[in-house]
């Protein structure tokens, strides 16, 4: 039985000027799953996500979302089709309130009732945000900003949620909390493409993983298998 594919990347090439950043990668994101891209700094993980969102243009290759070619579509169009990104470094709007930040996520929605429900949902996931609603985004701590960035993305009720290093720079206890929440969001039905340097955490909650090295996929497989793979253990998990 073949599974329904939400996102399909085929032989993608991306350049920054003369630098060949992504060298022909192919990735499949099946519906309802957590797929992870792991790799070191500079492997091309963020570039891959930026290219999907349309912020960075692809040189060649194809990105297909639910059967529609979205390669090099403008970012706002891609978002309106149901793809949300939790960007690297959170990118909270510092001088908008927490509430306004959340409403930025729901900008194109007209269903007032649905927005209200989703607000309740993110308050359930992150109760701390509720206490901070009228505070400016820039005054939040790093962990709270990450929660806000995830919530903001959820407020668009995405069909595909992409997350760029959500655990980066967080205290260990928060890292665990964030991974738990990602798992929960997925269990409630959202397909997730997760990019992480924290290979152990990412592989632990995901279904399938890709290992990216200097713009190429060097290894892929079910996450449990990658966790036990000798090269992965050595290079990314610090074991062996």
């Amino acid at each position, binding site marked *: 039985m073949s599974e329904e594919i939400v996102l399909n990347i085929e032989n993608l090439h991306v350049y920054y000027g003369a630098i060949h950043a992504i060298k022909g990668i192919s990735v499949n994101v099946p519906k309802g799953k957590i797929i992870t891209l792991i790799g070191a700094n500079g492997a091309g993980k963020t570039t891959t996500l930026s290219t999907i969102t349309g912020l960075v243009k692809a040189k060649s290759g194809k990105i297909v979302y639910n059967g529609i070619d979205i390669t090099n579509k403008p970012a*706002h169009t891609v*978002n309106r089709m149901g793809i949300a*990104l939790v960007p690297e470094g959170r990118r909270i*709007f*510092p001088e908008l309130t927490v509430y306004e930040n959340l409403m*930025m996520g729901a*900008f*194109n929605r007209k269903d007032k009732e649905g927005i209200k429900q989703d607000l309740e949902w993110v308050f359930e996931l992150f109760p701390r945000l509720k206490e901070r609603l009228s505070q400016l985004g820039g005054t939040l701590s790093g962990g709270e900003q990450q929660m806000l960035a995830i919530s903001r993305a959820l407020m668009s009720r995405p069909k595909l949620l992409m997350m760029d290093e959500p655990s980066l720079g967080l205290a260990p206890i928060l890292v665990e909390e964030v991974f738990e929440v990602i798992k929960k969001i997925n269990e409630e039905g959202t397909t997730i493409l997760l990019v992480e340097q924290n290979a152990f955490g990412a592989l632990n909650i995901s279904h399938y993983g890709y290992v990216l090295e200097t713009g190429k996929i060097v290894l892929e497989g079910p996450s449990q298998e990658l966790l036990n793979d000798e090269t992965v253990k050595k290079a990314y998990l610090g074991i062996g």
Partner: protein
Amino acid sequence: MGISSGSFFLQNLFNAIMLGGLYALIAVGYTMVYGILRLINFAHGDIMMMGVYFAFYAATILSLSSIPAAIVAVLGAAGLGFLIDRIAYKPLRNAPRISALITAIAMSFFLESFAVVVFGAVPKSFLSVFKDRSILNKVLTVGGAKIPLLTFLVIILTAAIFAVLFWIVYRTKIGMAMRAISMDIPTTSLMGINVDMVIGFTFALGSALAAASGIMWAMRYPNVFPYMGFMPGLKAFIAAVVGGIGSIPGAIVGGLVLGAVEIFAVSYFPDLSGYRDAFSFIILIAILLIKPSGILGKKAIEKV
């Protein structure tokens, strides 16, 4: 009426608020565009001039009465502002900032030359816009000071326009998007917001305010000519810098400061009236020396 009398002061105070408000209306356009694109739109004063011509022709050729003519002109200027962004600035979004700046200067020259060629270099009298001129000549007496009714109307109208502006910027979704863009353009587009549309809207809004200012200006100083936008544009730019460029409240404060200094300096030191324009530049130099970020400006933080 002596120079030291209270009514003399009052009269000048009203003039200062009126002039300051008119500067502020133009300054807001500079400051909003700067806040979003870090671009000084040097054509902004000329958009004000175009707005006044639109009102003039709406009243004379389309023979509209003065209020519909003003509304048509404000909408026309908004459209013109949107169009200028589309044609001249949008293609340069990712170009070095200096390219857009040079383009803005070129756009300013273009609009002025366009007006000379199409509208003619000979000044026209804005009074022909008014079928009924009696309102222009009414004078009220406040605390012994004689204040033209027009001055009151301009002040009230300016305040009302600012109230609407604040409502748009701080209470509507498009205003929220404008503020978001001024902080982070790529992330705003990730929220599904068409950034170019919002930038176009910002140009339209700023241009509409400049036209409104220009029309009120022309009611007071009823000479319409192709270069009429230059000095007010420059002064409003100074007002924006003095108040803190990028800040809307700053534009208002800057405009009022400039208006007050110009009016009071000239009325209390009539010998210096020839230096009227110089005062603005002196303030500009002073603020750049004392607090370069402007009265309400924040310290510039270079985003990396």
